[in-house]
């Protein structure tokens, strides 16, 4: 009797599941919406601002070429290299800026914590795949581009279960 009721309950639970909405994100058509514009850090307060840790964004008008981000990456991924840029900025006498190799980066965001000049943040851009390793190396001019944020789907809980969108 106990065995029969166990089977019946299991079947009932499975049947109930037929009427629950499908819990799938149809990825290339649907994209998730994230909190804020990505992970940022406030060096004055010493705490970060919550957000997705995706590709970096570099503000050329604030970067001083101090290499602190590169030093922070030592022993973690060693993905950041300081390269010469053609631009002339008053605060950046040496004209060097970080270049990030996303084949190595682990997206821990400790470089963002290290930047004292509000010059390096992270963004919601996570689609970084490429056909060659060379294309994964982002130069300072590529890092300056603000990504297009087109995610609009959020996880919702309704009467027929949790769904995306």
């Amino acid at each position, binding site marked *: 009797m*106990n*065995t029969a009721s*166990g*089977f019946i*309950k*299991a079947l*009932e*639970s*499975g049947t*109930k*599941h037929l009427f629950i909405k499908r*819990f*799938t994100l149809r990825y290339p058509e649907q994209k998730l919406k*994230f*909190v*804020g514009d990505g*992970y940022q850090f406030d060096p004055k307060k*010493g*705490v*970060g*601002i*919550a*957000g*997705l*840790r995706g590709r970096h964004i570099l503000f050329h008008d604030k970067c001083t070429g101090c290499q602190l981000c590169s030093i*922070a990456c*030592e*022993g*973690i*991924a060693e993905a950041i290299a300081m390269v010469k840029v053609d631009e002339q900025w008053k605060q950046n006498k040496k004209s060097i800026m970080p270049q990030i190799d996303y084949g190595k980066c*682990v*997206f*821990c*965001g*400790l470089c963002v*914590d*290290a930047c004292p000049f509000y010059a390096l943040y*992270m963004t919601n851009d996570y689609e970084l795949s490429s056909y060659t390793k060379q294309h994964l190396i982002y130069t300072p001019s590529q890092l300056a581009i603000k990504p297009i944020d087109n995610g609009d789907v959020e*996880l919702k*809980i309704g009467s027929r*279960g*949790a769904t995306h969108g």
Partner: protein
Amino acid sequence: MSSLDEKIDEAKKLSMQIVKESDEDKLMTLSVGPQHPGTGHFRFIIKLDGDYIVYVNIDPGYVHRGEEKMCEYRNYFTNIPHLERPVIHDSANITYSYSLAVEDLIGITVPRRGQFLRAITSELDRINYTLYWLAIYGIFLGHSTMFMWPAADRELVLDLLERLTGHRITHAFNIPGGVRNDMPNNFKEKCLSQINYLEKRLKEYEHIFYNNPLFRQRTEGVGILSKEDAIKLGVTGSVLRASGVPYDIRKVEPYDIYNEIDFNVQYMKTCDSFARAYIPFLDVRESCHIIRELLDKMPESGDVREKLLSNIKGPPGESFKRVESGRGALSYHIVSDGTSRPYRVKISTGSFRNILALPFLLVGSMLGDMPPIYWSLNYWPIEADR
């Protein structure tokens, strides 16, 4: 006649060459692994007499990464990203005890709000880990529905972790001195609604999996680890609690905020595979209660992180801290010689302690009972090898 004699002589010679069957020949040696016997690279060698296992030798070490040695070449902060790699889906707990040990060494305390955020991440990651583990348990026993459901419902927790920490796994969120960032707006409401929904789903798991007569028949009374043996073998976490020892480090040695949190230690006295499979599930339920309580008691505002120099020097000395992770006690012993890098870091994980019980449990049982016993030990090979 002569030809017959020759034949008899020939037969006698041949019979001399025949090697008689020895006891050893009855046994079949079976190598389980090292390519993913379920999860992670790990091998155990089994000798079978018919359908019964008579000898087991475990052979871990295929995914050894040298985490302890790597710690000696990096400073206290840059250790964080590589230390969470062994258990990417329980990374909050593996960095929790490390951060506690470093804070103990330096002699600082984390701000109150930071302690709450740490505990919330720790509990969310415990749920995350256990649901993943449960999904694999399902597929181990051929129950593919139980593989799909937790794998999908894990999304509820992953979504919360992504909002809070910025990553679904490997958060790099706990850091010596506190946590990296404060929680975003509307996190509390979102967290409450998703955790409540998850609890509703857990009831369905009970109907389809734990109360399913098929699952019960395969696990009940299988792989008995008595209370005395469990203590002698030194198993921890859910395996110890399934053997009737109510030992939870959150209760016995409360760290951070856990002494203010009211929760029950889940334990069972049946000592079998079913108990070991059921205790982590009960822990998930308890974690849901703890998260609700933490969100309720959390101070409205305040600091979350004590600011430290990025190349802080630890004073000469030692520290030892442990937390209750998804797999049991996870402890760090850090020795410092006064420089900005640790002199020695010893990581002791629950996985490695639990797998030592495997030869003990498998000998004498049938081969068909091997999957439910092996996976009930709550073992994660990569964490055990470090």
